[in-house]
């Protein structure tokens, strides 16, 4: 399984390195979303700083949808998905590999968006490590759910519109927990302030990674 995970993740990341879709399209889209949020909130810096945690995670969710769409579309062209099925790769390895590649891209995107939030909204981070931990845990959950629901929508003609519809409600706990942890980190709170939400992220990650390992194969065969 791990061999297949590394193989698939390496393939997807190599494709991203060549096409640079995440850096040249998804990241600018996220920044534009942050700018538009700022326009919508008006010139009140205090209001922007207060809303920064939620707006950051909403932008991350939008970017996740695009990153997952790209991950699915890579397998849709020229029968590549059939090629993967025919290769006899372990479905669990395939799920983990594709999730890992999406996660790696999300980490970079989150770093860019976090910079954008600090610069544009004047957000001040008092407990940086809490921000880092929440981003890492949130990334795992978003990558796992995105890959899972991306596979569900893969064989459907209207997948471009169906995927956000499926994914965004499912990812709501990440938005909620991530926002609360960021609020605690920006207010100079302690780890205990964010710990219930960190636990929620850990449980969310564990459930969706385990679910993906078990059901990704059957989903892929039936899509």
């Amino acid at each position: 399984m791990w061999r297949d995970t590394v193989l698939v993740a390496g393939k997807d990341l190599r494709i991203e390195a060549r096409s640079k879709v995440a850096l040249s399209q998804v990241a600018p889209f996220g920044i534009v979303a942050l700018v538009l949020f700022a326009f919508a909130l008006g010139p009140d810096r205090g209001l922007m700083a207060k809303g920064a945690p939620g707006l950051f995670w909403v932008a991350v969710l939008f970017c996740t949808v695009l990153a997952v769409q790209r991950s699915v579309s890579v397998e849709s062209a020229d029968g590549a998905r059939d090629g993967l099925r025919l290769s006899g790769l372990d479905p669990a390895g395939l799920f983990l590999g594709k999730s890992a590649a999406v996660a790696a891209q999300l980490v970079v995107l989150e770093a860019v968006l976090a910079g954008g939030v600090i610069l544009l909204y004047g957000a001040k981070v008092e407990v940086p490590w809490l921000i880092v931990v929440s981003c890492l845990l949130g990334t795992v959950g978003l990558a796992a759910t995105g890959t899972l629901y991306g596979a569900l929508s893969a064989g459907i003609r209207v997948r471009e519109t169906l995927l956000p519809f499926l994914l965004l409600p499912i990812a709501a706990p990440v938005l909620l927990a991530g926002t609360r942890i960021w609020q605690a980190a920006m207010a100079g709170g302690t780890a205990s302030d964010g710990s219930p939400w960190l636990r929620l992220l850990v449980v969310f990650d564990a459930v969706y990674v385990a679910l993906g390992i078990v059901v990704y194969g059957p989903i892929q065969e039936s899509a």
Partner: protein
Amino acid sequence: MAPAAPPSPAILLHDAVALSGRFPLLAGVDLEVATGETVLVEGPNGAGKTSLLRVCAGLVRLASGRVSVLGLDPVRQRNRVRRRVGLLSHASHLYDDLSVRENVRFAVRAAGADVARIDGACDRLGLSGRLLTTSAGKLSAGQRRRVALAVLAARWPELWLLDEPHAGLDASARQTLNQLIDEAQASGVTILIASHESGFVESLATRAVTVTGGRVTDHRPLGGGSLGAEAPSALNPGQPSAPTPPSPDRPVEGRVAHVA
């Protein structure tokens, strides 16, 4: 002393029915293909030739009936079957952003085959020099087909399922493909070829079956497969093909060394 049991067929379909929604892809196919046999599958458009190959590859599940591929159930034991089966379909299964070499390497590694055979297989299909580092997205349809064939030649599975294999290939590539098929026959590979262009294939196949309306409606013997081990290699003209049969324990090293 009891006579030895006959070897199980490479492909066995009994009353196989496959559906796409409510549309019948196969409507009760009975077909048996012996190990090492090369069978041409003929029939008009939409007759079920491609579906038959996809059932054998485990990509399409039967609604009823029975299928066995290499003695295994291609649905329940799909990963074991798929690593031993190669499907050359209308799609080339390539990633446009990866180079030719990267595509072949990924496909071969994913199938658990020996990467040492990649260079020889690519050379043989005319994929060399700058072409190896060219993105698959920049290739012509014929070149993409060559890459798909290179994957098959590098993997050298036990069962080849070839769907219109000559389509989109130029004369040189068609000749190379015929030589590959001939060498595969000589090494004991079982081959199922779905083709409209019977003229290219009849000399290679030992038997033809006609599929009409999702059923096998006719069988006829052909005189193909006679080139056998006497066929010259594309890389070693005048040299007989290595007859080394591929096996899981010693997977076609001799064959591949010859390819390379």
